[in-house]
């Protein structure tokens, strides 16, 4: 998972970092083609052997460049090799139409401009591909020069200089872009890996904190009764002490159930409470209908906790119901009577995630209703999606 994350982030960062050089490459190619090539072609129009072929060649270069630029900026693939072939063909035609006097002039635009347009097409590929295309361009030029001007030493040295000039800048640019991309990728991967580690650490910290909170809450109440029992201050035969023990056992059971990984955690936690009181001989009618939405542990606690006290104090039977809908969960406990008149939560030191703690901090609200009449004790908690 962290590797995927880092890979994705690296892709994004690389794309962002490369956008500048892409725009620069497009501007250089078209700048050259419009500012230098266009005036040269128009200025020497009458001297070309077939001016319309050269004009058409200039337009074809523009068209290929446009396709390459649009795809490059959109990140879409171009039909690279056919377009490179088209550019080389135009290069050959322009050579054939250029008079010998203008071979080393900008009027012979194909050779000089080839590199910049090929860079657009070969973007992101390895350097040797670019070098190979430029070498083909240089070979065409050599053939052209030999045919047009012969093998004069001066011409050959001018040729060598031109090859050097036409090749170095595009190659240097491509090397720089490739380096930049690699660098950005590794930086982003490192940053993403660091973030993933920090996230994991934070999650582990929160988990640890919530366990400590639960332990602390139990320590106050369960710890107190255990201490009293150990010191002989609490009498195990006293029904009130037995009730407190039952309550703590039930809460302990539910808090342990909270960290279990089960499909319906709320039902699982409630069932844990029911198990404890049923073991003590209280029949519980536990019915769940509908489908429960996934709820965070804080909400589940606010739904379940207020019922625990009443459940453990129930004397004859209890009915526990859960009704779930996507935007509402209602938990209800009814019992004909409890062994204590102060069954209302809060009265017995019940403090874990009590309804009313911090409504605003969680998604939705938990409403709590406690009712006691001659017929029954009724505790109801209801969560509604915010």
């Amino acid at each position, binding site marked *: 998972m962290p590797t995927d994350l880092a890979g994705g982030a690296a892709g994004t960062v690389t794309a962002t970092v490369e956008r500048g050089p892409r725009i620069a490459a497009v501007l250089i190619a078209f700048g050259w083609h419009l500012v230098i090539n266009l005036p040269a072609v128009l200025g020497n129009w009458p001297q070309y052997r077939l001016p319309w072929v050269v004009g058409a060649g200039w337009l074809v270069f523009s068209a290929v460049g446009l396709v390459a630029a649009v795809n490059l900026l959109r990140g879409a693939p171009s039909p690279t090799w056919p377009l490179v072939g088209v550019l080389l063909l135009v290069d050959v035609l322009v050579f054939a139409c250029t008079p010998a006097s203008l071979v080393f002039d900008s009027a012979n635009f194909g050779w000089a401009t080839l590199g910049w347009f090929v860079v657009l097409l070969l973007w992101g590929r390895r350097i040797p591909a670019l070098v190979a295309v430029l070498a083909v361009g240089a070979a065409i030029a050599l053939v052209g020069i030999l045919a047009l001007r012969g093998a004069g030493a001066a011409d050959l040295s001018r040729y060598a200089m031109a090859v050097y000039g036409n090749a170095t800048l595009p190659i240097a640019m491509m090397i720089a872009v490739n380096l930049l991309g690699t660098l950005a990728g590794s930086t982003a991967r490192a940053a993403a890996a660091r973030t993933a580690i920090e996230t994991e650490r934070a999650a582990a910290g929160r988990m640890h904190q919530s366990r400590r909170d639960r332990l602390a809450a139990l320590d106050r109440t369960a710890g107190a009764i255990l201490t009293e029992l150990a010191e002989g201050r609490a009498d195990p035969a006293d029904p009130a002490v037995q009730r407190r023990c039952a309550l703590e056992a039930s809460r302990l059971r539910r808090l342990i159930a909270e960290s279990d990984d089960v499909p319906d955690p709320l039902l699982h936690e409630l069932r844990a409470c029911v198990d404890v009181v049923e073991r003590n001989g209280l029949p519980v009618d536990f019915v769940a*209908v509908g*489908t429960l939405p996934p709820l965070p542990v804080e909400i589940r606690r606010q739904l379940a906790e207020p019922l625990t006290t009443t459940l453990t104090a129930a004397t004859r039977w209890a*009915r526990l*119901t859960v*009704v779930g*809908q996507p935007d509402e969960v209602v938990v209800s406990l009814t019992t004909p009577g409890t062994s204590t008149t102060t069954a209302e939560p809060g009265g017995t030191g019940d403090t874990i995630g009590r309804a009313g703690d911090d409504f605003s901090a969680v998604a939705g609200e938990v409403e709590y209703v406690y009712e006691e*009449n001659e017929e029954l004790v*009724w505790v109801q908690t209801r969560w509604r999606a915010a």
Partner: protein
Amino acid sequence: MGADPVAGGMTPERSRITVAIVDDHPVVIEGIRSWLATEPRLAVVATGEDPDRVLAADQPTADVILLDLRLRGRMVLDKVTELGGAGRRVVVYSEHSDSDTILAVLDAGAVAFLAKHEGREHCVDTVLAAASDRPYVPPALAGAIVGDRRTGRPVLSDKEREALLLWFQSMSKASVARRMNISEHTVKQYVDRARIKYARAGRPAATKAALLARAIEDGLVRADEIGS
């Protein structure tokens, strides 16, 4: 075993509501018979494990049929459909009280559903209501309706849903009335109206039509509310 000869031999007064019990466990038949015996308006006239024999033409006609949904290991939902279609008032009772089963039973045309654990009072009240084509919603049935998430389910009003929910939770109409600040009579109306909406849904059955007709007669719903 066939129809109970003792039950068949009883001579019910004309004014009493006659009941047939179909169950494959004699002990359950005896239990229900003793429950119903506490209500003088009811008379069990036929019992047995085979619905076709209990309801055969030579048996005394029963106003209400209490039918165990599972007979000899088989769910007899088709039997509910058949009897409901013929206008026989079937109260299905079962230990299978999951919502899907309950809703399927309502759809098939049963007048009511009773969970086996729901006890004597609900049983007697359900049979009495069924005999007069009136709805009775025991808590398990209320739960199934409240939890119904099927597409195309009847649309309940907020009050109807809340009354059903609280009735399902507390099983005490007095407590629901107090909580909702309305009379017990109104609680019952909300719950019954919700039930009647289910008689309008799903496949038509003679029993559903009878429930609807009686609801209109009683003023529980208006004829123009029935719609198509």
